[in-house]
């Protein structure tokens, strides 16, 4: 059962690989052909040198008439072999880098269509590693591995054939002895594998310890725990040292051992060859060719055994990539999907329920009716489902029961693009792209003029700090906007919304990191912006939601109370409790 699934998986992987390299078939064929030329010429050269040696018999007995044409010919062969090798190398590059780019871009394009549920449940680091490292390993290992395997096998076969044409018995000696080095290499590799695994485990442990402690270095210092962490570090470091020494030592035995076995083969060839030569079985020149072959013969074997492991790794990478690109995308917009333009802003939740995992229902039978222009506040403790409602509104997730409508349309019958374009969203976790301030603000409306952009930034009270940045609106922001404070990042994302001003606004703790003076100013701008627009406001500072038309109090996925501020206070329930607690005296 399991096996058959593996076979199916493997055949899917191979199909994926084949699709990826298909556009490059001509390149690959040409490269293979040129490698064959290189191998054959490379193998011919020792034979030609051997026949030259045969014409160098002794003092005054050197046949220059025979030698010279062979030597000229050898130079030409070497030149042709070199040229063929270079060209095939470049062809390989073209294929490898081309495939990796194709595969990567295809995967990236696919990611754009994946549902949020997939992206939320898979760490970004893991997906990025598939997109970057696995794509590299796949194409590198597979294609370079393939060419190396091809030339390796061809060299082995060619060498055997050439040797056979000279002498069967010596060939036999070489053929029997050489594979020994592979066994030995395999034996050592097998032994070191477990050591390397141990080493990489401990190394991983070390890295995550370092990562955590360096990130928390200030906390460590403020509690004077430098010595304690150093003690823990030493414990891991000592273990790492021990297993690194053995892993590195044992793995570094591979080369000397194969070299030694090669020396044995070489001695065997010299012995049998010389003895045959005495009997007149072969010439001294042929012995020279044999010795050259004996020298090179084990090299392709080592390469082949290396390539096989690499191919395995590359297949594993291909499978991981395939897992990503094979992930089912979001259900595409239906054929009759409506394009929402200039939405009025009527939103209704009709008996909706939702859960991230079937075992744990989160939102149950929620009904809300919002008329265009109303302001809805959502309050409640952390984890009560506030953010989930936003996920549903924007169709980052689809409801599992009931329906959400905008202007009377079930949002599942509206194109995602037009639906999302009707919303303006400022999230608590602001996201800044690593580009200029200008591009960041214009993210929602790339065609806006600079005047409009500056006006939006002014309205968001961001203009002031932006102008104080080294290059104003053209300042490049680092990854995640690291150079800005959390508050400044929020001001920037508010500017984005101020620039695009869509009909429905979603403000998720939008001003949580902004000081209240600035917040008061921004809220005036917000008020202006929200006038006549439907707005959903998530907040835990109750002061910011007081003026809303409707306040939803959520707890554990349920709306436990709803009404206006005054109604809720009068009811004397959970809301009143929350409200009063913020004025509790010390």
């Amino acid at each position, binding site marked *: 059962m399991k096996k058959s699934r593996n076979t199916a998986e493997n055949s899917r992987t191979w199909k994926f690989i084949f699709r990826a390299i298909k556009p490059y078939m001509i390149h690959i064929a040409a490269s293979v052909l040129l490698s064959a030329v290189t191998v054959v010429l490379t193998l011919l050269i020792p034979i030609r040198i051997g026949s030259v040696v045969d014409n160098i018999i002794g003092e005054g007995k*050197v046949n220059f008439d025979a030698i010279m044409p062979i030597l000229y010919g050898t130079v030409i062969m070497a030149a042709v072999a070199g040229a063929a090798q270079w060209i095939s190398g*470049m062809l390989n590059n073209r294929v490898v*880098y081309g495939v990796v780019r194709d595969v990567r871009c295809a995967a990236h394009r696919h990611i*754009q269509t994946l549902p949020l549920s997939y992206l939320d449940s898979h760490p970004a680091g893991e997906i990025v590693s598939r997109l970057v490292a696995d794509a590299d390993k796949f194409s590198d290992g597979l294609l370079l591995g393939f060419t190396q395997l091809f030339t390796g096998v061809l060299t082995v076969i060619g060498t055997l054939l050439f040797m056979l044409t000279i002498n069967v018995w010596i060939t036999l000696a070489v053929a029997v002895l050489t594979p020994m080095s592979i066994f030995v290499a395999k034996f050592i590799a097998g032994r070191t594998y477990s050591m390397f695994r141990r080493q990489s485990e401990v190394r991983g442990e070390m890295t995550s310890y370092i990562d955590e402690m360096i990130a928390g270095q200030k906390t460590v210092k403020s*509690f004077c725990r430098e010595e304690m962490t150093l003690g823990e570090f030493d414990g891991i*470091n000592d273990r790492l040292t021990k297993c690194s020494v053995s892993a*590195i030592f044992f793995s570094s035995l591979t080369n000397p051992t194969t070299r030694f076995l090669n020396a044995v083969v070489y001695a065997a060839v010299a012995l049998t060859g010389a003895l045959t030569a005495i009997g007149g079985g072969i010439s001294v020149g042929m012995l020279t060719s044999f010795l050259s072959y004996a020298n090179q013969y084990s090299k392709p074997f080592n390469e082949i055994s290396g390539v096989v492991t690499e191919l395995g790794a590359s297949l594993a990478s291909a499978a991981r990539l395939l897992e990503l690109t094979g992930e089912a995308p979001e259900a595409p917009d239906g054929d009759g999907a409506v394009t929402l333009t200039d939405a009025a802003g009527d939103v209704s939740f009709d008996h909706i329920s939702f859960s991230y995992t079937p075992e744990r229902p989160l939102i149950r039978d929620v009904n809300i009716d919002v008329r265009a222009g109303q302001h809805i506040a959502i309050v409640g403790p952390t984890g009560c489902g506030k953010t989930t409602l936003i996920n549903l509104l924007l169709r980052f997730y689809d409801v599992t029961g009931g329906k959400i409508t905008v202007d009377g349309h079930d949002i599942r019958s509206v194109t995602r693009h037009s639906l999302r374009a009707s*919303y303006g969203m400022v999230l608590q976790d602001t996201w800044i792209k690593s580009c200029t301030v200008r591009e960041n603000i214009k993210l929602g409306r790339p065609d806006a003029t600079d005047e409009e952009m500056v006006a939006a930034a002014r309205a968001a009270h961001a203009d002031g700090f932006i102008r104080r940045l080294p290059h104003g609106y053209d300042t490049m922001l680092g990854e995640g906007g690291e150079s800005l404070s959390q508050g400044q990042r929020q001001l920037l994302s508010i500017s984005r919304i101020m620039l695009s001003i869509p009909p429905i606004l979603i403000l998720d703790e939008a001003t949580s990191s902004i000081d209240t003076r600035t917040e008061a100013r921004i809220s005036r701008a917000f008020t202006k912006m929200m006038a006549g627009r439907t707005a959903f406001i998530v907040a835990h500072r109750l002061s910011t939601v007081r003026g809303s038309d409707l306040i939803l109090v959520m707890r554990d996925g349920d709306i436990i109370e709803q009404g206006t501020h005054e109604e809720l206070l009068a009811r004397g329930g959970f809301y009143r409790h929350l409200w009063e607690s913020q*004025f509790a005296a*010390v």
Partner: protein
Amino acid sequence: MRQVFHYLRSYLKESLLGPLFKLLEATFELFVPLVVADIVDVGIKNGDRTHIVWMAVLMVALGVIGLSCTVAAQYFAAKASVGCTSKLRRALFRHIGKLDYSTLDGLGTSTMVTRLTSDMNQVETGLNLTLRLLLRSPFVVFGAMVMAFTIDAHAASVFAVTIPVLALAVFAIMLVSIPLYKKVQQALDKVLLSARENLLGVRVLRAFGREADEIAEFEKRGDALAASQRFVGRISALLNPLTFVLINLAAVVLVYVGALRVDAGMIETGEVIALYNYMSQILVELVKLANLIINVTRSVASANRIESIIMLPEEENGCVTELDVNAEYAVEFDRVSLRYKNGGSDALSDISFRVRRGQTVGIIGGTGSGKSSLVNMIPAFYPATAGVVRVYGENVNDIDRGTLRRRVAVVSQGAPLFRGTVRDNILFGRPDATDAEVASAVKTAQAADVIASKDGGLDEPVERGGVNFSGGQRQRLTIARALVTGADILILDDSSSALDFATDAALRASLAALEPKPTVFVVSQRTSSIMHADMIIVLDDGECVGMGTHEELLASCAVYREIHDSQRKEASA
């Protein structure tokens, strides 16, 4: 590099023996072509079978000796390189623990982590390769030439020409391609950044419908990467064919010259074979050497990066270890200014105030007004650029850092929890705290219900960064961690921002009830959190614009009034 050598010195024996054994092995390898020449010129020529057998045995014997030498060499090299790197890693980790806050700010976490991990691994690889191969390869190359000269000086002159030409070709290609590979790396980094940002910003990007632009940008970067890879690939693909052609050209010339010398009766046929064999040995070693040099260059760069951190000055330390905890004033600021190392203008300017023992001080102000800077100066995380900060009457710069920081506990806004259990995290504050002390700290920090809500209680596992706890839960645990230290100056740097008002109020009440009463600094953006403080300091753009009680400030300080109104108006209207 000096640091690396410093730690390598403890492995002096190993780092000398390693290369030495390698050279022995190489020497034995160099004898092999001579043995082959002897087989041809003596054995075959005279039909002496016994001689041939003995020579073959000699070759195997040379192989055995070579193998044992290498095994010894590999062992010593592994021991020295791993041991040295381990000591270096420890030294760096320890040194980072001794750096001051501004240096840590300047370096950044990811830089330090890279230095401790991948740079260290690179140094280890480089050291190991250096000990094993750096002497061997040149030795074989020049050894082969010397051996060729012992056979025949005339023919050997071919070597004298070939070696420099080959070396030039190999190193020229390497030198040209190394900087190009750096460009490839940069292009790859861009691809990586693009991919990661796209995932992290997926909600914003999809909300704005920017998928198509993201794809276009990613593909542009992918194309740029492929183009730069192809460019450098074209050059580095030249290495093997070029050296192959050169070495065969040299072999042809060598055989021709050899033929002339045999014809003239100067050498024998077998010696021509030996010369040819030496020629093939050179190529292999030169390519190895070139690869080695690339690796070593990278390692040297890594070592220098590591060293640049180790060379950073340690945090200055004072020598006062006794503090008069009964002094009238717990904390004094006397005309204090602070300017960050890379900051343009003062983060704080000319701040003066005095805090009596047991008082509670509120600090309020807008984003970037210098609130955190001010409190971080009390445990001397940032030393004053001008003026003096005193704790219990002593200039903080003169107090031993350990002594000072055991008295002052700071809870900063984003302080992390570490992997382990809840108990481990609280004991991080003071490892020898009793269960009763832990329980009381937890209670004061309003964290009792956090712990009660978890199945494992105090032994509930904490994931890295405390991600399995909510923001408010994390904050309460970090407060408990600070309380358990028993420090008598407590700084809460916006550390109750994620708490709801009820919990925040309960926290304030339980802090006020502590006995003996600690001196408390509360940094906040909400007036409600600090309005009951004995003294409130109002900061605006790094300057103190008001100081006094809530009522005094309402009467006298416009900024304070504005902050208070902005919160109050919304709250009560």
